[in-house]
Protein backbone atom coordinates (compact mmCIF):
# COMPACT_ATOMS: atom_id res chain seq x y z
CA UNK A 1 0.00 0.00 0.00
CA UNK A 2 2.72 2.48 1.02
CA UNK A 3 4.66 1.61 -2.17
CA UNK A 4 1.56 2.40 -4.24
CA UNK A 5 1.13 5.80 -2.63
CA UNK A 6 4.72 6.94 -3.07
CA UNK A 7 4.71 6.89 -6.85
CA UNK A 8 4.40 9.56 -9.52
CA UNK A 9 1.44 7.64 -10.96
CA UNK A 10 -0.39 7.95 -7.66
CA UNK A 11 0.31 11.69 -7.50
CA UNK A 12 -1.02 12.10 -11.03
CA UNK A 13 -4.10 10.10 -10.05
CA UNK A 14 -4.73 12.28 -7.00
CA UNK A 15 -4.34 15.41 -9.12
CA UNK A 16 -6.81 14.06 -11.65
CA UNK A 17 -9.36 13.05 -9.00
CA UNK A 18 -9.04 16.39 -7.23
CA UNK A 19 -10.02 18.40 -10.34
CA UNK A 20 -13.85 18.20 -9.98
CA UNK A 21 -13.64 18.83 -6.23
CA UNK A 22 -11.30 21.79 -6.69
CA UNK A 23 -13.32 23.42 -9.45
CA UNK A 24 -16.53 22.98 -7.43
CA UNK A 25 -14.77 24.47 -4.40
CA UNK A 26 -13.66 27.50 -6.42
CA UNK A 27 -17.26 27.93 -7.54
CA UNK A 28 -18.43 27.64 -3.93
CA UNK A 29 -15.88 30.26 -2.86
CA UNK A 30 -16.87 32.81 -5.52
CA UNK A 31 -20.64 32.39 -5.07
CA UNK A 32 -20.47 32.44 -1.28
CA UNK A 33 -17.96 35.28 -1.09
CA UNK A 34 -20.50 37.26 -3.13
CA UNK A 35 -23.07 36.52 -0.40
CA UNK A 36 -25.14 33.65 -1.84
CA UNK A 37 -25.24 30.26 -0.07
CA UNK A 38 -24.14 27.72 -2.66
CA UNK A 39 -25.55 24.29 -1.95
CA UNK A 40 -26.16 23.77 -5.68
CA UNK A 41 -22.57 22.66 -6.39
CA UNK A 42 -23.72 19.06 -6.75
CA UNK A 43 -26.29 20.08 -9.38
CA UNK A 44 -23.73 22.15 -11.29
CA UNK A 45 -21.32 19.20 -11.35
CA UNK A 46 -24.02 16.76 -12.42
CA UNK A 47 -25.52 18.93 -15.18
CA UNK A 48 -21.98 19.84 -16.28
CA UNK A 49 -21.02 16.17 -16.47
CA UNK A 50 -24.18 15.36 -18.41
CA UNK A 51 -23.85 18.23 -20.92
CA UNK A 52 -20.15 17.52 -21.45
CA UNK A 53 -20.68 13.81 -22.14
CA UNK A 54 -23.67 14.24 -24.44
CA UNK A 55 -22.20 17.17 -26.39
CA UNK A 56 -18.83 15.41 -26.70
CA UNK A 57 -20.66 12.35 -27.99
CA UNK A 58 -22.73 14.37 -30.48
CA UNK A 59 -19.83 16.45 -31.83
CA UNK A 60 -17.18 13.74 -31.35
CA UNK A 61 -15.00 16.34 -29.65
CA UNK A 62 -14.15 16.24 -25.95
CA UNK A 63 -13.09 19.89 -26.17
CA UNK A 64 -16.53 21.05 -27.32
CA UNK A 65 -17.87 18.83 -24.52
CA UNK A 66 -15.89 20.84 -21.96
CA UNK A 67 -17.38 24.06 -23.33
CA UNK A 68 -20.85 22.51 -23.10
CA UNK A 69 -20.23 21.48 -19.51
CA UNK A 70 -19.16 25.02 -18.60
CA UNK A 71 -22.26 26.46 -20.25
CA UNK A 72 -24.48 24.02 -18.33
CA UNK A 73 -22.82 24.92 -15.02
CA UNK A 74 -23.32 28.62 -15.71
CA UNK A 75 -26.96 27.98 -16.65
CA UNK A 76 -27.62 26.24 -13.32
CA UNK A 77 -25.95 29.18 -11.56
CA UNK A 78 -28.19 31.64 -13.43
CA UNK A 79 -31.29 29.67 -12.39
CA UNK A 80 -30.03 29.59 -8.81
CA UNK A 81 -29.47 33.37 -8.75
CA UNK A 82 -32.86 34.03 -10.29
CA UNK A 83 -34.66 31.98 -7.63
CA UNK A 84 -32.50 33.10 -4.73
CA UNK A 85 -32.13 36.81 -5.52
CA UNK A 86 -34.89 37.82 -7.93
CA UNK A 87 -37.62 35.79 -6.23
CA UNK A 88 -35.92 35.83 -2.84
CA UNK A 89 -36.48 32.13 -2.18
CA UNK A 90 -34.66 30.32 0.66
CA UNK A 91 -31.10 29.85 -0.60
CA UNK A 92 -30.52 26.52 1.13
CA UNK A 93 -33.74 25.07 -0.27
CA UNK A 94 -33.05 26.40 -3.78
CA UNK A 95 -29.63 24.76 -3.72
CA UNK A 96 -30.97 21.37 -2.65
CA UNK A 97 -33.89 21.69 -5.10
CA UNK A 98 -31.46 22.23 -7.97
CA UNK A 99 -29.49 19.17 -6.90
CA UNK A 100 -32.65 17.05 -6.85
CA UNK A 101 -33.62 18.52 -10.23
CA UNK A 102 -30.20 17.60 -11.62
CA UNK A 103 -30.60 14.04 -10.34
CA UNK A 104 -34.02 13.53 -11.96
CA UNK A 105 -33.45 15.86 -14.91
CA UNK A 106 -30.31 14.17 -16.21
CA UNK A 107 -32.03 10.78 -16.00
CA UNK A 108 -35.02 12.14 -17.88
CA UNK A 109 -32.82 13.67 -20.59
CA UNK A 110 -30.84 10.40 -20.88
CA UNK A 111 -34.13 8.62 -21.48
CA UNK A 112 -35.23 11.30 -23.96
CA UNK A 113 -31.96 11.31 -25.95
CA UNK A 114 -30.93 7.66 -25.83
CA UNK A 115 -33.99 5.75 -24.67
CA UNK A 116 -32.15 4.57 -21.56
CA UNK A 117 -32.12 6.16 -18.10
CA UNK A 118 -28.77 5.11 -16.61
CA UNK A 119 -25.83 5.58 -19.00
CA UNK A 120 -25.01 7.68 -22.04
CA UNK A 121 -23.33 6.02 -25.03
CA UNK A 122 -19.54 6.06 -25.02
CA UNK A 123 -17.98 9.18 -26.54
CA UNK A 124 -14.54 10.76 -26.68
CA UNK A 125 -12.66 10.86 -23.36
CA UNK A 126 -9.54 12.32 -21.83
CA UNK A 127 -8.91 9.12 -19.91
CA UNK A 128 -6.14 9.07 -17.32
CA UNK A 129 -4.14 11.78 -19.09
CA UNK A 130 -3.10 14.64 -16.82
CA UNK A 131 -0.74 16.94 -18.73
CA UNK A 132 -2.81 16.83 -21.94
CA UNK A 133 -6.18 17.17 -20.22
CA UNK A 134 -7.43 20.77 -20.66
CA UNK A 135 -9.67 20.55 -17.58
CA UNK A 136 -6.65 19.91 -15.35
CA UNK A 137 -5.16 23.12 -16.70
CA UNK A 138 -8.44 24.98 -16.22
CA UNK A 139 -8.35 23.86 -12.58
CA UNK A 140 -4.73 24.90 -12.06
CA UNK A 141 -5.23 28.28 -13.73
CA UNK A 142 -8.55 28.89 -11.92
CA UNK A 143 -6.97 28.13 -8.54
CA UNK A 144 -4.34 30.82 -9.02
CA UNK A 145 -6.43 33.09 -11.22
CA UNK A 146 -9.52 33.40 -9.02
CA UNK A 147 -7.41 34.00 -5.91
CA UNK A 148 -5.58 36.74 -7.81
CA UNK A 149 -8.78 38.17 -9.27
CA UNK A 150 -10.34 38.40 -5.79
CA UNK A 151 -7.80 41.04 -4.73
CA UNK A 152 -6.69 42.60 -8.00
CA UNK A 153 -9.67 42.95 -10.34
CA UNK A 154 -12.85 45.00 -10.35
CA UNK A 155 -14.84 41.73 -10.61
CA UNK A 156 -13.21 40.35 -7.47
CA UNK A 157 -13.43 43.52 -5.40
CA UNK A 158 -17.10 44.03 -6.24
CA UNK A 159 -17.80 40.36 -5.57
CA UNK A 160 -16.27 40.53 -2.11
CA UNK A 161 -18.01 43.81 -1.35
CA UNK A 162 -21.35 42.23 -2.35
CA UNK A 163 -20.75 39.46 0.17
CA UNK A 164 -19.44 41.59 3.00
CA UNK A 165 -21.06 45.03 2.71
CA UNK A 166 -23.52 45.22 -0.16
CA UNK A 167 -24.67 48.64 1.10
CA UNK A 168 -21.18 49.99 0.37
CA UNK A 169 -21.55 48.90 -3.26
CA UNK A 170 -24.91 50.64 -3.47
CA UNK A 171 -23.40 53.93 -2.26
CA UNK A 172 -20.88 53.89 -5.11
CA UNK A 173 -23.63 53.13 -7.61
CA UNK A 174 -22.89 49.47 -8.24
CA UNK A 175 -25.63 46.85 -8.13
CA UNK A 176 -24.86 44.05 -5.65
CA UNK A 177 -27.19 41.84 -7.68
CA UNK A 178 -25.00 42.19 -10.76
CA UNK A 179 -21.81 41.55 -8.79
CA UNK A 180 -23.40 38.37 -7.37
CA UNK A 181 -24.68 37.27 -10.77
CA UNK A 182 -21.24 37.65 -12.40
CA UNK A 183 -19.60 35.84 -9.49
CA UNK A 184 -22.08 32.98 -9.76
CA UNK A 185 -21.76 32.72 -13.55
CA UNK A 186 -17.96 32.49 -13.48
CA UNK A 187 -18.15 30.00 -10.61
CA UNK A 188 -20.89 28.01 -12.33
CA UNK A 189 -18.84 27.70 -15.51
CA UNK A 190 -15.87 26.43 -13.49
CA UNK A 191 -18.02 23.92 -11.60
CA UNK A 192 -19.45 22.82 -14.95
CA UNK A 193 -15.89 22.18 -16.15
CA UNK A 194 -15.40 20.12 -12.99
CA UNK A 195 -18.47 18.10 -13.92
CA UNK A 196 -17.02 17.66 -17.41
CA UNK A 197 -13.94 16.07 -15.84
CA UNK A 198 -16.12 13.51 -14.05
CA UNK A 199 -17.79 12.26 -17.24
CA UNK A 200 -15.05 12.95 -19.82
CA UNK A 201 -12.41 11.05 -17.85
CA UNK A 202 -14.41 7.92 -18.70
CA UNK A 203 -16.32 9.14 -21.79
CA UNK A 204 -19.70 8.10 -20.38
CA UNK A 205 -22.28 9.86 -18.22
CA UNK A 206 -23.96 7.68 -15.58
CA UNK A 207 -26.88 8.75 -13.39
CA UNK A 208 -25.82 10.32 -10.07
CA UNK A 209 -22.13 10.09 -11.03
CA UNK A 210 -21.21 13.21 -9.02
CA UNK A 211 -21.68 11.13 -5.85
CA UNK A 212 -21.73 13.96 -3.29
CA UNK A 213 -18.54 15.67 -4.53
CA UNK A 214 -20.30 19.05 -4.55
CA UNK A 215 -21.18 18.77 -0.86
CA UNK A 216 -17.64 17.69 0.02
CA UNK A 217 -16.25 20.63 -1.96
CA UNK A 218 -18.48 23.01 0.03
CA UNK A 219 -17.18 21.51 3.27
CA UNK A 220 -13.66 22.30 2.04
CA UNK A 221 -14.73 25.87 1.19
CA UNK A 222 -15.90 26.27 4.77
CA UNK A 223 -12.72 24.65 6.12
CA UNK A 224 -10.58 27.02 4.04
CA UNK A 225 -12.44 30.04 5.38
CA UNK A 226 -13.94 30.87 1.96
CA UNK A 227 -10.48 31.33 0.38
CA UNK A 228 -10.59 29.79 -3.12
CA UNK A 229 -6.96 28.68 -3.49
CA UNK A 230 -6.90 27.14 0.00
CA UNK A 231 -10.19 25.42 -0.66
CA UNK A 232 -8.82 23.95 -3.89
CA UNK A 233 -5.76 22.69 -2.02
CA UNK A 234 -7.95 21.19 0.73
CA UNK A 235 -9.76 19.32 -2.03
CA UNK A 236 -6.51 17.55 -2.91
CA UNK A 237 -6.76 16.02 0.57
CA UNK A 238 -10.23 14.65 -0.16
CA UNK A 239 -9.01 13.37 -3.52
CA UNK A 240 -6.13 11.66 -1.74
CA UNK A 241 -8.56 9.92 0.62
CA UNK A 242 -10.66 8.89 -2.35
CA UNK A 243 -7.64 7.46 -4.19
CA UNK A 244 -6.45 5.59 -1.11
CA UNK A 245 -9.94 4.20 -0.61
CA UNK A 246 -9.94 3.00 -4.21
CA UNK A 247 -6.54 1.30 -3.88
CA UNK A 248 -7.53 -0.31 -0.57
CA UNK A 249 -10.56 -1.72 -2.34
CA UNK A 250 -8.67 -3.27 -5.25
CA UNK A 251 -5.65 -4.35 -3.18
CA UNK A 252 -7.86 -6.72 -1.19
CA UNK A 253 -6.69 -5.42 2.18
CA UNK A 254 -8.22 -6.29 5.53
CA UNK A 255 -10.55 -3.30 5.23
CA UNK A 256 -13.92 -4.51 3.88
CA UNK A 257 -14.53 -3.46 0.26
CA UNK A 258 -17.85 -1.84 1.24
CA UNK A 259 -16.12 0.51 3.68
CA UNK A 260 -12.98 1.58 1.76
CA UNK A 261 -14.86 3.94 -0.63
CA UNK A 262 -16.33 5.74 2.39
CA UNK A 263 -12.95 7.25 3.28
CA UNK A 264 -13.53 10.70 1.65
CA UNK A 265 -16.96 11.01 3.30
CA UNK A 266 -15.56 10.14 6.71
CA UNK A 267 -12.64 12.51 6.22
CA UNK A 268 -14.97 15.37 5.23
CA UNK A 269 -17.19 14.73 8.24
CA UNK A 270 -14.20 14.65 10.60
CA UNK A 271 -12.75 17.83 9.12
CA UNK A 272 -16.08 19.63 9.55
CA UNK A 273 -16.46 18.44 13.12
CA UNK A 274 -12.88 18.92 14.29
CA UNK A 275 -11.86 22.09 12.48
CA UNK A 276 -15.17 23.55 11.31
CA UNK A 277 -13.85 26.66 9.66
CA UNK A 278 -10.44 28.33 9.61
CA UNK A 279 -11.98 31.67 8.75
CA UNK A 280 -15.07 33.80 9.07
CA UNK A 281 -17.99 33.52 6.65
CA UNK A 282 -18.76 36.54 4.46
CA UNK A 283 -20.72 39.03 6.58
CA UNK A 284 -23.81 39.07 4.37
CA UNK A 285 -23.83 35.38 3.43
CA UNK A 286 -27.43 34.30 2.86
CA UNK A 287 -28.91 37.77 3.40
CA UNK A 288 -30.38 39.78 0.59
Amino acid sequence: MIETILTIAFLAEVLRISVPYALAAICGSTTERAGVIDLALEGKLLFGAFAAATIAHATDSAYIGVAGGMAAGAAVAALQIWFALRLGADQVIVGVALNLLALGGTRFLLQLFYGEGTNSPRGPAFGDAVATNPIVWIAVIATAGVAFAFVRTRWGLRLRAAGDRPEALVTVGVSPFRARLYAALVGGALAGAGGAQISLSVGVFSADMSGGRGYMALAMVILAGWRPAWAAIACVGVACASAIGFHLQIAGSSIPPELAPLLPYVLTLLVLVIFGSLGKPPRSLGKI
Partner: protein
Amino acid sequence: MTSNTRREVQAAMIALLVSVAIGSLLALGVGVSPGKMWWEMLERTASDPYLFGQVLYKATGLALCGLAVALALDAGLFNIGAEGQITAGVLVCATVGAALPDATPAILAIPLCLAAAAAGGGAVGGLIGVLRAKRGAHEVITSIMLNAIIAGVALWVGNAVLFRGGTTRGDAIVAGAELPELGLGGSSANTSLVLAALAVIALAWVRSRTTWGHAWRAVGRDPAAARSVGISVARVQTLVMTASGALAGLAAANFVMGHKHAFEEGLGRNTGFLGISVALLGRSHPFGVAIAALVIGFLSQGGLAVGDFVPKELTEMLQGVVVLAVAGASVWIKRQPEPGR
Protein backbone atom coordinates in the same frame (compact mmCIF):
# COMPACT_ATOMS: atom_id res chain seq x y z
CA MET B 1 -58.97 30.05 7.53
CA THR B 2 -56.54 32.65 8.78
CA SER B 3 -54.82 34.72 6.12
CA ASN B 4 -51.56 32.91 6.89
CA THR B 5 -53.04 29.48 6.31
CA ARG B 6 -54.74 30.70 3.16
CA ARG B 7 -51.44 31.94 1.78
CA GLU B 8 -49.70 28.66 2.53
CA VAL B 9 -52.46 26.74 0.76
CA GLN B 10 -52.26 29.14 -2.19
CA ALA B 11 -48.50 28.69 -2.41
CA ALA B 12 -48.83 24.90 -2.42
CA MET B 13 -51.57 25.05 -5.06
CA ILE B 14 -49.53 27.34 -7.32
CA ALA B 15 -46.48 25.10 -6.95
CA LEU B 16 -48.58 22.07 -7.81
CA LEU B 17 -50.10 23.76 -10.86
CA VAL B 18 -46.65 24.87 -12.07
CA SER B 19 -45.37 21.32 -11.59
CA VAL B 20 -48.32 19.87 -13.51
CA ALA B 21 -47.69 22.40 -16.30
CA ILE B 22 -44.01 21.49 -16.47
CA GLY B 23 -44.90 17.79 -16.34
CA SER B 24 -47.24 18.36 -19.30
CA LEU B 25 -44.44 20.05 -21.26
CA LEU B 26 -42.13 17.13 -20.47
CA ALA B 27 -44.82 14.74 -21.69
CA LEU B 28 -45.01 16.67 -24.96
CA GLY B 29 -41.22 16.40 -25.10
CA VAL B 30 -41.38 12.60 -25.07
CA GLY B 31 -44.27 12.67 -27.57
CA VAL B 32 -47.10 11.76 -25.18
CA SER B 33 -50.36 13.68 -24.93
CA PRO B 34 -50.35 15.35 -21.48
CA GLY B 35 -54.12 14.96 -21.16
CA LYS B 36 -53.86 11.23 -21.78
CA MET B 37 -50.93 10.91 -19.34
CA TRP B 38 -52.67 12.63 -16.40
CA TRP B 39 -56.03 11.00 -17.12
CA GLU B 40 -54.58 7.48 -17.40
CA MET B 41 -52.58 8.08 -14.22
CA LEU B 42 -55.75 9.01 -12.32
CA GLU B 43 -57.98 6.46 -13.98
CA ARG B 44 -55.70 3.46 -13.56
CA THR B 45 -54.83 4.32 -9.95
CA ALA B 46 -58.45 4.89 -8.95
CA SER B 47 -59.86 1.80 -10.65
CA ASP B 48 -57.23 -0.76 -9.60
CA PRO B 49 -57.23 -1.60 -5.86
CA TYR B 50 -53.64 -2.85 -6.13
CA LEU B 51 -52.35 0.46 -7.55
CA PHE B 52 -54.45 2.42 -5.05
CA GLY B 53 -52.95 0.34 -2.24
CA GLN B 54 -49.44 0.99 -3.55
CA VAL B 55 -50.14 4.75 -3.39
CA LEU B 56 -51.14 4.33 0.27
CA TYR B 57 -48.02 2.22 0.93
CA LYS B 58 -45.76 4.89 -0.55
CA ALA B 59 -47.70 7.69 1.15
CA THR B 60 -47.23 6.03 4.56
CA GLY B 61 -43.43 6.14 4.34
CA LEU B 62 -43.54 9.59 2.74
CA ALA B 63 -45.80 11.00 5.45
CA LEU B 64 -43.45 9.88 8.25
CA CYS B 65 -40.44 11.18 6.34
CA GLY B 66 -42.22 14.38 5.38
CA LEU B 67 -43.10 14.95 9.07
CA ALA B 68 -39.42 14.43 9.92
CA VAL B 69 -38.27 17.04 7.41
CA ALA B 70 -41.14 19.42 8.33
CA LEU B 71 -40.36 19.23 12.05
CA ALA B 72 -36.74 20.18 11.38
CA LEU B 73 -37.73 22.96 8.96
CA ASP B 74 -40.01 24.41 11.64
CA ALA B 75 -36.94 24.77 13.83
CA GLY B 76 -34.89 26.28 11.00
CA LEU B 77 -32.96 23.08 10.23
CA PHE B 78 -32.89 21.34 6.88
CA ASN B 79 -32.84 17.58 7.43
CA ILE B 80 -31.79 16.02 4.14
CA GLY B 81 -30.39 13.10 6.10
CA ALA B 82 -33.74 11.29 6.27
CA GLU B 83 -32.37 8.89 3.67
CA GLY B 84 -29.68 7.67 6.08
CA GLN B 85 -32.04 7.81 9.07
CA ILE B 86 -34.50 5.49 7.31
CA THR B 87 -31.71 3.03 6.52
CA ALA B 88 -30.57 3.11 10.16
CA GLY B 89 -34.19 2.62 11.30
CA VAL B 90 -34.70 -0.27 8.88
CA LEU B 91 -31.45 -1.95 9.94
CA VAL B 92 -32.05 -1.66 13.71
CA CYS B 93 -35.76 -2.50 13.46
CA ALA B 94 -35.16 -5.63 11.37
CA THR B 95 -32.25 -6.77 13.55
CA VAL B 96 -34.24 -6.41 16.78
CA GLY B 97 -37.29 -8.00 15.14
CA ALA B 98 -35.27 -11.01 14.03
CA ALA B 99 -33.51 -11.39 17.37
CA LEU B 100 -36.73 -11.62 19.43
CA PRO B 101 -37.78 -15.12 20.56
CA ASP B 102 -40.23 -16.76 18.12
CA ALA B 103 -43.12 -16.75 20.58
CA THR B 104 -42.97 -13.02 21.41
CA PRO B 105 -46.57 -11.75 21.48
CA ALA B 106 -47.50 -8.82 19.25
CA ILE B 107 -48.22 -6.63 22.25
CA LEU B 108 -44.50 -6.77 23.12
CA ALA B 109 -42.93 -7.26 19.72
CA ILE B 110 -44.60 -4.34 17.93
CA PRO B 111 -43.70 -1.63 20.49
CA LEU B 112 -40.15 -3.02 20.76
CA CYS B 113 -39.63 -2.96 17.00
CA LEU B 114 -41.14 0.53 16.71
CA ALA B 115 -38.86 1.75 19.48
CA ALA B 116 -35.88 0.16 17.71
CA ALA B 117 -36.76 1.88 14.43
CA ALA B 118 -37.16 5.24 16.14
CA ALA B 119 -33.93 4.75 18.08
CA GLY B 120 -31.94 3.91 14.95
CA GLY B 121 -33.14 6.97 13.06
CA GLY B 122 -33.07 9.17 16.16
CA ALA B 123 -29.44 8.34 16.89
CA VAL B 124 -28.41 9.51 13.41
CA GLY B 125 -30.61 12.62 13.61
CA GLY B 126 -29.30 13.39 17.10
CA LEU B 127 -25.71 13.14 15.88
CA ILE B 128 -26.45 15.65 13.10
CA GLY B 129 -28.15 17.92 15.66
CA VAL B 130 -25.24 17.77 18.11
CA LEU B 131 -22.73 18.50 15.36
CA ARG B 132 -24.80 21.51 14.32
CA ALA B 133 -25.45 22.80 17.83
CA LYS B 134 -22.04 22.19 19.35
CA ARG B 135 -19.66 22.41 16.38
CA GLY B 136 -21.60 24.62 13.97
CA ALA B 137 -21.23 22.00 11.21
CA HIS B 138 -23.88 22.67 8.56
CA GLU B 139 -26.55 19.97 8.82
CA VAL B 140 -26.94 19.66 5.05
CA ILE B 141 -23.30 18.70 4.52
CA THR B 142 -23.06 16.38 7.54
CA SER B 143 -26.36 14.77 6.46
CA ILE B 144 -25.09 13.98 2.96
CA MET B 145 -21.86 12.55 4.36
CA LEU B 146 -23.80 10.43 6.87
CA ASN B 147 -26.19 9.24 4.13
CA ALA B 148 -23.24 7.87 2.15
CA ILE B 149 -21.54 6.43 5.24
CA ILE B 150 -24.70 4.73 6.55
CA ALA B 151 -25.51 3.24 3.13
CA GLY B 152 -21.99 1.75 3.00
CA VAL B 153 -22.03 0.52 6.58
CA ALA B 154 -25.50 -1.03 6.16
CA LEU B 155 -24.29 -2.91 3.09
CA TRP B 156 -21.21 -4.07 4.96
CA VAL B 157 -23.21 -5.24 7.99
CA GLY B 158 -25.60 -6.97 5.61
CA ASN B 159 -22.89 -8.76 3.67
CA ALA B 160 -20.82 -9.64 6.72
CA VAL B 161 -23.54 -10.70 9.15
CA LEU B 162 -27.16 -10.51 8.06
CA PHE B 163 -27.63 -11.60 4.45
CA ARG B 164 -28.47 -15.26 3.98
CA GLY B 165 -27.18 -17.59 1.27
CA GLY B 166 -26.01 -15.12 -1.38
CA THR B 167 -29.20 -13.03 -1.22
CA THR B 168 -29.43 -9.41 -0.11
CA ARG B 169 -32.05 -10.28 2.50
CA GLY B 170 -31.57 -10.89 6.22
CA ASP B 171 -33.47 -13.16 8.63
CA ALA B 172 -37.21 -12.59 8.90
CA ILE B 173 -38.61 -10.74 11.92
CA VAL B 174 -40.78 -12.71 14.36
CA ALA B 175 -44.43 -13.18 13.40
CA GLY B 176 -45.59 -11.06 16.35
CA ALA B 177 -43.81 -7.98 14.99
CA GLU B 178 -45.51 -8.10 11.62
CA LEU B 179 -48.08 -5.41 10.95
CA PRO B 180 -51.10 -6.81 9.06
CA GLU B 181 -51.62 -5.75 5.46
CA LEU B 182 -54.76 -3.85 4.51
CA GLY B 183 -55.53 -6.41 1.81
CA LEU B 184 -56.03 -3.94 -1.04
CA GLY B 185 -55.66 -6.10 -4.13
CA GLY B 186 -52.50 -7.76 -2.85
CA SER B 187 -50.74 -4.40 -2.47
CA SER B 188 -48.14 -3.57 0.20
CA ALA B 189 -50.42 -1.11 2.03
CA ASN B 190 -50.46 -2.04 5.71
CA THR B 191 -51.64 -0.90 9.13
CA SER B 192 -48.62 1.33 9.65
CA LEU B 193 -50.86 3.80 7.82
CA VAL B 194 -52.60 4.21 11.19
CA LEU B 195 -49.24 4.91 12.82
CA ALA B 196 -48.52 7.62 10.23
CA ALA B 197 -51.97 9.16 10.80
CA LEU B 198 -51.40 9.16 14.58
CA ALA B 199 -47.99 10.79 14.08
CA VAL B 200 -49.61 13.53 11.97
CA ILE B 201 -52.19 14.27 14.68
CA ALA B 202 -49.66 14.06 17.51
CA LEU B 203 -47.21 16.40 15.81
CA ALA B 204 -49.95 18.88 14.92
CA TRP B 205 -50.95 18.96 18.57
CA VAL B 206 -47.43 19.28 20.00
CA ARG B 207 -46.58 21.93 17.43
CA SER B 208 -49.45 24.27 18.19
CA ARG B 209 -50.54 23.43 21.73
CA THR B 210 -47.41 22.86 23.81
CA THR B 211 -44.49 24.98 24.99
CA TRP B 212 -42.11 22.59 23.18
CA GLY B 213 -43.80 23.37 19.91
CA HIS B 214 -43.56 27.06 20.55
CA ALA B 215 -39.92 26.78 21.56
CA TRP B 216 -38.88 24.98 18.38
CA ARG B 217 -40.84 27.30 16.14
CA ALA B 218 -39.38 30.31 17.93
CA VAL B 219 -35.88 28.95 17.22
CA GLY B 220 -36.87 28.49 13.59
CA ARG B 221 -38.20 32.02 13.20
CA ASP B 222 -35.37 33.87 14.94
CA PRO B 223 -32.69 32.05 16.97
CA ALA B 224 -31.41 35.32 18.51
CA ALA B 225 -34.87 36.28 19.73
CA ALA B 226 -35.46 32.76 21.07
CA ARG B 227 -32.18 32.94 22.98
CA SER B 228 -33.12 36.27 24.52
CA VAL B 229 -36.34 34.85 25.97
CA GLY B 230 -34.37 32.06 27.63
CA ILE B 231 -34.68 29.19 25.12
CA SER B 232 -31.51 27.12 24.77
CA VAL B 233 -31.10 27.11 21.00
CA ALA B 234 -28.44 24.37 21.02
CA ARG B 235 -30.66 22.11 23.13
CA VAL B 236 -33.71 22.68 20.93
CA GLN B 237 -31.71 22.02 17.76
CA THR B 238 -30.34 18.77 19.15
CA LEU B 239 -33.72 17.57 20.42
CA VAL B 240 -35.53 18.52 17.22
CA MET B 241 -33.00 16.72 15.03
CA THR B 242 -33.26 13.64 17.28
CA ALA B 243 -37.06 13.67 17.04
CA SER B 244 -36.84 14.30 13.30
CA GLY B 245 -34.50 11.33 12.86
CA ALA B 246 -36.79 9.17 15.00
CA LEU B 247 -39.79 10.03 12.79
CA ALA B 248 -37.79 9.15 9.67
CA GLY B 249 -36.65 5.93 11.34
CA LEU B 250 -40.27 5.04 12.10
CA ALA B 251 -40.82 4.75 8.34
CA ALA B 252 -39.14 1.36 8.87
CA ALA B 253 -42.45 0.23 10.39
CA ASN B 254 -43.94 0.58 6.92
CA PHE B 255 -41.08 -1.04 5.03
CA VAL B 256 -39.96 -3.77 7.44
CA MET B 257 -42.84 -4.57 9.80
CA GLY B 258 -45.61 -3.92 7.27
CA HIS B 259 -44.12 -5.21 4.04
CA LYS B 260 -40.76 -6.99 3.66
CA HIS B 261 -40.52 -8.45 7.21
CA ALA B 262 -36.69 -8.45 6.96
CA PHE B 263 -33.69 -6.23 6.28
CA GLU B 264 -33.11 -5.86 2.57
CA GLU B 265 -30.49 -3.96 0.64
CA GLY B 266 -31.90 -0.61 -0.57
CA LEU B 267 -35.21 -0.95 1.30
CA GLY B 268 -36.93 2.46 1.47
CA ARG B 269 -34.36 4.07 -0.81
CA ASN B 270 -35.26 7.52 -2.15
CA THR B 271 -38.07 7.99 0.40
CA GLY B 272 -35.85 10.39 2.35
CA PHE B 273 -35.32 12.69 -0.61
CA LEU B 274 -38.99 12.52 -1.61
CA GLY B 275 -39.79 13.46 1.98
CA ILE B 276 -38.21 16.86 1.27
CA SER B 277 -40.72 17.47 -1.54
CA VAL B 278 -43.51 16.31 0.78
CA ALA B 279 -42.51 18.61 3.65
CA LEU B 280 -42.10 21.66 1.43
CA LEU B 281 -45.27 21.05 -0.54
CA GLY B 282 -47.10 20.48 2.76
CA ARG B 283 -45.74 23.87 3.90
CA SER B 284 -44.27 22.18 7.01
CA HIS B 285 -47.70 21.78 8.59
CA PRO B 286 -48.51 18.19 9.67
CA PHE B 287 -51.91 18.18 7.93
CA GLY B 288 -50.35 19.70 4.83
CA VAL B 289 -47.67 17.00 4.95
CA ALA B 290 -50.34 14.27 5.09
CA ILE B 291 -52.02 15.62 1.94
CA ALA B 292 -48.68 16.20 0.19
CA ALA B 293 -47.63 12.61 1.00
CA LEU B 294 -50.70 11.35 -0.87
CA VAL B 295 -50.01 13.69 -3.80
CA ILE B 296 -46.32 12.75 -4.11
CA GLY B 297 -47.14 9.08 -3.46
CA PHE B 298 -49.68 9.27 -6.26
CA LEU B 299 -47.19 10.95 -8.62
CA SER B 300 -44.53 8.39 -7.81
CA GLN B 301 -46.83 5.36 -8.17
CA GLY B 302 -48.81 6.93 -11.04
CA GLY B 303 -45.57 7.36 -12.97
CA LEU B 304 -45.05 3.60 -12.72
CA ALA B 305 -48.71 2.87 -13.54
CA VAL B 306 -48.42 4.61 -16.92
CA GLY B 307 -44.92 3.21 -17.48
CA ASP B 308 -46.08 1.47 -20.65
CA PHE B 309 -46.19 4.78 -22.55
CA VAL B 310 -44.43 7.36 -20.32
CA PRO B 311 -40.81 6.89 -19.14
CA LYS B 312 -40.67 6.70 -15.34
CA GLU B 313 -37.86 9.29 -15.37
CA LEU B 314 -40.50 11.93 -16.13
CA THR B 315 -42.14 11.70 -12.71
CA GLU B 316 -38.72 11.37 -11.05
CA MET B 317 -37.75 14.70 -12.55
CA LEU B 318 -41.04 16.26 -11.42
CA GLN B 319 -40.10 15.59 -7.80
CA GLY B 320 -37.22 18.08 -8.13
CA VAL B 321 -39.47 20.51 -10.00
CA VAL B 322 -41.97 20.44 -7.12
CA VAL B 323 -39.34 21.52 -4.57
CA LEU B 324 -38.12 24.39 -6.75
CA ALA B 325 -41.69 25.47 -7.53
CA VAL B 326 -42.66 25.55 -3.84
CA ALA B 327 -39.53 27.50 -2.93
CA GLY B 328 -40.44 30.10 -5.54
CA ALA B 329 -44.20 30.16 -4.99
CA SER B 330 -44.03 30.59 -1.21
CA VAL B 331 -42.04 33.83 -1.44
CA TRP B 332 -44.03 35.07 -4.42
CA ILE B 333 -47.30 34.65 -2.50
CA LYS B 334 -45.93 36.50 0.52
CA ARG B 335 -45.19 39.50 -1.67
CA GLN B 336 -48.72 39.80 -2.99
CA PRO B 337 -50.79 42.49 -1.21
CA GLU B 338 -53.44 41.27 1.23
CA PRO B 339 -56.87 41.38 -0.48
CA GLY B 340 -59.33 43.83 1.09
CA ARG B 341 -62.25 42.37 2.97
